[in-house]
């Protein structure tokens, strides 16, 4: 699609990120100032969205490995000490016959964080290549990312309440593993990553008439 889209940035109009009020930029100077209604600092686009989002994605990817390799909880009984990783927990739920819950945990703990990292990287790369293809789909992808990110906290809550409830020392007790901390870090970093990405960048690349810069 090469039809020029009249965006706020092209028209010199800034929508306030807090209250949505449109303000017109007064002069040619760079800084648009503050919103006259709510006082929020105005900006045409978020500050350094591409660099910041990449940084957060890389940090989250680094935490993703220990989050999955280290145990999230350890079950101690008189006979045994069994550490469980995220995947181990999924396998155990499946083996116990609750395959629906196994699937839910698999989606929330493995597929959502991994999918979120890959999808954000895809959005960043397409924006950096100034792609104009599938912009509506990419916009929808971004909205889905923002909505589902929190669900990867699921396993942290499972560990928390298992630890709080299974306290029958020395017969049976559950203690948290160090994977929990890394896992929480992945979730928080990816939520921040989705927040620092500016979806308006998806639309900035195209839209100017053919042959025009």
């Amino acid at each position: 699609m090469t039809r020029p889209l009249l965006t706020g940035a092209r028209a010199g109009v800034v929508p306030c990120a807090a209250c949505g009020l449109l303000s017109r930029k007064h002069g040619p100077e760079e800084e648009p100032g503050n919103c006259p209604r709510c006082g929020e600092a105005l900006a045409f686009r978020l500050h350094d969205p591409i660099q910041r989002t990449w940084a957060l994605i890389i940090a989250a990817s680094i935490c993703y490995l220990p989050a999955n390799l280290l145990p999230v909880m350890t079950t101690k009984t008189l006979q045994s000490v069994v550490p469980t990783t995220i995947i181990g927990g999924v396998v155990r739920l499946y083996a116990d016959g609750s395959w629906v819950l196994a699937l839910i945990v698999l989606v929330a703990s493995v597929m959502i964080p991994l999918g979120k990292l890959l999808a954000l990287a895809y959005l960043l790369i397409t924006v950096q290549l100034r792609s104009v293809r599938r912009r509506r789909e990419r916009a929808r992808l971004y909205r889905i990312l923002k909505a589902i990110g929190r669900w990867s906290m699921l396993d942290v809550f499972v560990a928390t309440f298992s630890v709080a409830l299974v306290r029958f020392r020395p017969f049976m007790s559950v203690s948290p593993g160090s994977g929990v901390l890394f896992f929480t870090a992945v979730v928080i970093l990816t939520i921040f990553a989705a927040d620092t990405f500016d979806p308006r960048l998806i639309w900035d690349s195209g839209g100017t008439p053919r042959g025009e810069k």
Partner: protein
Amino acid sequence: MAPLPQDIVACPDCDLLQRMPALPPGGTARCLGCGLMLWLKRPGSLDRTMALAVAALIAFLLANVEPLMEVSFAGRTSSTTILGGAQAMWLQGEKVTAVLVALFVVVAPALEIVFMLAVLLAARRPPAPRWVGVLMRWTEMSGVWSMVGVMMLGILVSLVKIASLATVEPGIGIFAVGALVFLLAAISASFNPREIWPRVRWTNGEGPGAMR
């Protein structure tokens, strides 16, 4: 420069300038560019949100006071509240996670509900003071980190896991959590910040229409 017409909006997701049509009650407006839901017009949404927020406050208090479930094993029982979960993590050495869990399932939802009630109460008599705008921003931020629904599912998963080892009895708390999840979802579906903003006093002392 001519002032912008009041019905022109910029989509927050794609920055496309467009005219907001006059919507019938119950109507919705989507962005022409990216398809984002721009406006959901519901008659009486402020009153309905207020009722839901009061109910959510009660559910929240119950959910935090009552035990979530009781587990029996080898002649002993143990039970926990929401904060008890965070406390158990703290005592087991996972202090960072304990604090974050408490933030996500106790502090953030509490702020979300209290700020929402304050905004709704103050906006009943326009012009509302400036802090209403600030609180609205804070409500939004608390909502991002409020994870009651995720916690609910987490409790259910741990319940199923524990049930294969010990006897599990659900408590009042878990039902209150269920109600709270439903009420928070209903609040975010019925609340429309665009209905509040025109009622808020401007920081520069000018009113609506003084658009520059």
